[in-house]
């Protein structure tokens, strides 16, 4: 039976992190050398953690499924990273960043973690600059900032549209330095398929070498999961093809609670789906909404003609366009938060006003901005995005409005962690997008990078020492323990079952079907009926998958189909949990919109009396329904209000 | 750290030495062309012979001559080393021919270099070896009389043809030479690099055109 204890220090919010650091137990350098830590994932959180732990003197083993750590999907983040530096002197400070994050998350995150995140944010920028991250600068040589959705100050640091890439390369470089120094050992092209728990403590992992198919055992005194989000449960998402939930899911099965799984973020500005064989959605930076105006035709007949390619958007007169965000949200207009913008687009398309060949797209129009600022200025601001759009869609966005549609982008839910970022399994930590901690029910733009780096560089290295200080007398964990044997047996059995299931359909077939169920019933808006139906559909899919999947190739070789099959099987189970979570949360908040719970003018209607808690789900065995535990959220510092962007 | 730990030339050092030797050869070519241009002076070879005589007798020139041999040797030896290394670096080659855009003629520096080397060998036999007495001069021509020697050679159409072809190839070699050398020496600048590239082409045209003018004059106007 899981006990949720957030372990936040019992002092006022603003003093908590200092108090924690002052009281936290440390490990001396000669003992650090004797302690092994496994870090799974090499994105911002994982690479930052591996680099820092290595530099502190621990023996770090770092795992990634990619061929090199530098390809982790943090690399694809475009917009920027928030930090309460107040370099612009526009009234920003740590409290404001904290407040914006709590509010943006629709009051479903833990105050103590978010406050710590905000207070650490300035240090991140200092470190990244020292590492040589080429942030945008003003002519005076100092750092530039831009504004982002959900904030009234300019606190976002950026490196053109490639901030994630530059930050990741910074972390990867720091990690490379430790690899050269011998403190970090890299295991690339490995899938982590199980977490080994010995006497109630996380003691290692079982990994599959993706090149040789060999099953490997790795032991350590603590295990850190930095494996990112699970957006690929929707099949089409902006996540990388390989992004998966597998390590986190193994942790769940080994006793780690999974929190708020239904909180997913749907990003409003993605390139629409073009066809059945599409494998992946591409995000266009949110910054486009600073200058672009979003609209659909006012008349259904016009929309119909556009879908049939008998009419071009430029031909639709100004008076026949519906700038629906400006109409519905005059105060924020096109800059409403992501969840609001996404739902509004879906509402219009569902009502029959959508454009594009599928009717699932809205226009993002720059003609006004081009008239106001000139083409050169627009090209300077968004040139690379326009180029990317043109390459994919084969249409010139300077002339024809862009088409956009929401797509799954980020998952706020994840492994439940306490203030120390430890899951409910002692010695098992979760950092970055992989945990649930900081973004509540909706994440603000440019906050994911902040969280990943804060966790990896500055939080985990402190909090893990508290745990490891009790482990200094534990000798290296032998991989010959029965728990390792058992885990290896489980893994090999499951691989063998997958391989011999001998069905007819490819893995992608099942993945696509799962994605469709999730998108339709557990996507941008949800309702009881759809969710209940989804539970049944997922159960069917799960059974069909077990007997109907066809996997070519062998177990002991490079076999991408086998990799995918394992991941998709986990996604199907996760889908079930997400639907359960969405079903139980009878309120609308952030990215979770239950149609039954909305205000008269169709805005999300939160229910703080009954649902101001974190839903942490516990695995109860293969054939038993998971059990939900609550971590009540206490808002001592901020006052809960209804979000309004009107 | 050099993983091999050997004392050897690094990639960049090898290329820098090659480039420096190449630049030295570029200077030599200009001097050589200057003297050869005297062949075009219509004075029965008087000024040419005077210049040639000076070049073969003045002691300081002897030192330069040695440096010149050194330059050629360095350029050729490193050219060969780098080429061999470069072939090793891709043991399995592509099935489809490369269609990547490359700087004009840059892929054929080795090939053109070999052509120039063959020409150089002929040139040595025809002139330098005669001068130092290793090879006997043709009957009726004195060992130091380069003018008559040149006139005789250019009266042979085959020789002139070989000569012309060699210099066309040298022209292409040179077109890439100066720009590649500046790049290797790290002298790249957004403003000046285009000028250097243009100068490189101009230099190639002047050298190749200048040398080629000589057989053309002798065969066309004699």
């Amino acid at each position, binding site marked *: 039976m899981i006990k949720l204890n957030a372990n936040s220090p019992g002092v006022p919010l603003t003093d908590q992190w200092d108090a924690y650091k002052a009281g936290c137990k440390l490990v001396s350098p000669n003992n650090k050398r004797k302690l092994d830590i496994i870090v799974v994932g090499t994105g911002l959180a994982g690479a930052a953690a591996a680099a820092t732990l290595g530099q502190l003197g621990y023996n770090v083993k770092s795992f990634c499924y990619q061929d090199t750590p530098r390809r982790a999907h943090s690399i694809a983040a475009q917009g920027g990273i928030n930090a309460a530096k107040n370099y612009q002197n526009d009234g920003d400070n740590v409290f404001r960043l904290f407040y914006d994050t709590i509010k943006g998350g629709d009051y479903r995150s833990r105050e103590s973690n978010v406050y710590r995140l905000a207070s650490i944010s300035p240090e991140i920028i200092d470190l990244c600059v*020292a590492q*040589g991250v080429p942030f945008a600068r003003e002519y005076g040589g100092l750092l530039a900032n831009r504004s982002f959705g959900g904030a009234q100050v300019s606190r976002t640091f950026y490196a053109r549209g490639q901030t994630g890439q530059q930050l990741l390369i910074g972390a990867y470089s720091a990690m490379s330095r430790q690899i050269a120094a011998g403190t970090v050992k890299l295991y690339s092209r490995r899938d982590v398929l199980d977490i080994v728990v010995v006497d109630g403590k996380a003691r290692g992992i079982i990994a599959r070498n993706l090149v040789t198919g060999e099953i490997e055992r790795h032991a350590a005194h603590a295990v850190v999961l930095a494996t990112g989000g699970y957006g690929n449960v929707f099949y089409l998402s902006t996540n990388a093809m390989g992004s998966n939930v597998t390590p986190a899911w193994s942790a769940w099965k080994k006793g780690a609670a999974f929190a708020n799984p239904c909180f997913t973020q749907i990003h409003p500005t993605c390139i629409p789906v073009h066809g059945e064989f599409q494998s992946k959605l591409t995000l266009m930076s949110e910054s486009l909404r600073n200058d672009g105006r979003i609209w659909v035709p006012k008349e259904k007949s016009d929309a119909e003609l556009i879908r049939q390619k008998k009419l071009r958007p430029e031909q639709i007169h100004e008076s026949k366009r519906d700038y629906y965000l400006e109409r519905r949200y005059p105060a924020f207009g096109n800059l409403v938060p992501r969840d609001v913008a996404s739902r509004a687009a879906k509402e219009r398309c569902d009502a029959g006003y959508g454009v594009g060949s599928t009717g699932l797209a809205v226009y993002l129009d720059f003609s006004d901005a081009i008239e106001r600022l000139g083409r050169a200025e627009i090209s300077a601001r968004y040139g690379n995005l326009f180029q990317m759009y043109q390459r994919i869609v084969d249409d010139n966005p300077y002339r024809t409005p862009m088409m956009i549609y929401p797509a799954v982008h980020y998952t706020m839910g994840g492994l439940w962690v306490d203030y120390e970022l430890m899951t409910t399994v002692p010695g098992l930590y979760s950092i970055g997008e992989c945990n649930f901690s900081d973004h509540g029910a909706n994440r603000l733009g440019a906050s994911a990078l902040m969280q990943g780096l804060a966790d990896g560089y*500055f939080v985990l290295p402190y909090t893990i020492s508290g745990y490891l200080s009790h482990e200094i007398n534990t000798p290296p964990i032998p991989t010959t323990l029965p728990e390792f044997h058992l885990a290896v047996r489980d893994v090999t059995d499951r691989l063998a079952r997958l391989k011999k299931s001998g069905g007819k359909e490819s893995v992608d077939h099942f993945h696509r079907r799962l994605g469709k169920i999730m998108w339709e019933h557990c996507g941008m808006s949800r309702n009881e009926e759809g969710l209940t139906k989804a539970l049944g559909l997922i159960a069917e899919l799960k059974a069909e998958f077990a007997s109907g999947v066809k996997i*070519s190739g062998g177990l002991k070789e490079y076999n991408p189909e086998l990799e995918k099959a394992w991941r998709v099987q986990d996604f199907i189970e996760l889908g079930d949990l997400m639907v359960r979570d969405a079903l139980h949360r009878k309120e609308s908040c952030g990215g979770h919109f239950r149609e039954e719970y909305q205000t008269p003018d169709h805005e999300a209607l939160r229910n703080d009396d009954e649902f101001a808690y974190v839903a942490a789900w516990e695995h109860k065995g293969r054939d038993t329904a998971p059990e939900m535990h609550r971590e009540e959220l206490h808002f001592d510092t901020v006052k809960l209000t209804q979000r309004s962007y009107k | 750290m050099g993983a091999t730990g050997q004392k050897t030339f690094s990639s960049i050092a090898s290329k820098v030495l090659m480039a420096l030797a190449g630049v030295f050869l570029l200077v030599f070519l200009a001097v050589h062309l200057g003297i050869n241009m005297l062949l075009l002076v219509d004075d029965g070879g008087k000024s040419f012979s005077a210049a040639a005589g000076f070049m073969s007798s003045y002691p300081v020139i002897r030192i330069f001559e040695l440096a010149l041999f050194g330059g050629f040797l360095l350029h050729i030896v490193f050219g060969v080393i780098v080429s061999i290394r470069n072939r090793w670096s891709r043991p399995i080659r592509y099935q*489809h021919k490369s269609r990547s855009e490359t*700087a004009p003629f840059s892929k054929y520096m080795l090939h053109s270099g070999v052509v120039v080397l063959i020409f150089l060998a002929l040139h040595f036999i025809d002139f330098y070896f005669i001068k130092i007495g290793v090879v006997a001069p043709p009957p009726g021509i004195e060992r130091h009389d380069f003018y008559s020697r040149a006139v005789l050679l250019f009266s042979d159409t085959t020789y002139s043809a070989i000569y012309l072809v060699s210099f066309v190839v040298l022209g292409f070699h040179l077109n890439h030479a100066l720009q590649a050398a500046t790049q290797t020496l790290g002298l790249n600048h957004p403003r000046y690099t285009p000028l250097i590239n243009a100068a490189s082409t101009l230099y190639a045209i002047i050298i190749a055109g200048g040398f080629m003018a000589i057989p053309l004059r002798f065969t066309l106007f004699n």
Partner: protein
Amino acid sequence: MKFTLKIWRQKNADDKGRLVSYMVDDISPDSSFLEMLDQLNQQLISRGEEPVAFDHDCREGICGACGLYINGRPHGPLKGTTTCQLHMRAFRNGEMIYIEPWRSGAFPVVRDLIVDRSALDTIIQAGGYISVNSGGVPDANTIPVPKPNADSAFDAAACIGCGACVAACPNASPMLFVGAKISHLALLPQGRIEATRRVQQMVAEMDALGFGFCSNTYACQAECPKEISIANIARMNREFLAAKLAAEKEQTGGFTI
């Protein structure tokens, strides 16, 4: 659309490998190149054959995982484009398309179109970083950087480590990759501190890994999906010469020049 594909198939590193022909039909011109291969793989799986293995991940042109040698060009016919961002409309209907793995002695084939590019990581480990620890660094704005330098550093840092420069180079040289990293760090005041040591160590490592030497054909620049300039190679050469000629202390292990 319809295509004939000639794809390099190789079971593992020890297999000899060969080109195999496949036909694909019913390809949307809006499909990406990798989606076209996905479609082929679905066919192969349903026929009980082994799908073609190729590296890919983000499919939005930034992770650098994908990289195929397509009709004699790394990442195919379009300039400044990764394989995943290449769409089938860039080809003629019915065209024959050769698809090969990157070729370099330092990039052994793992399977089919997948090569092992860890040599690039090894070069970075030799010095492609600024030696600072997490924490104890000065406030970010105490290190002003002239905007032009910051911009040039960014241009160099845009490298995605895909290895197309090696694949394109007639000599399989990674000098654009190495030059870009050296430039990125050398252009910033933070990076200057270690510049002398860094360039020597990285060049030495690059040489030790058996890559070829640059012969200034600039094929790398033409094929780089991030359009990184060869000016970065020149800067590396300059940094290297300055380091070797001006350094008063021998800073690398074996290499003298």
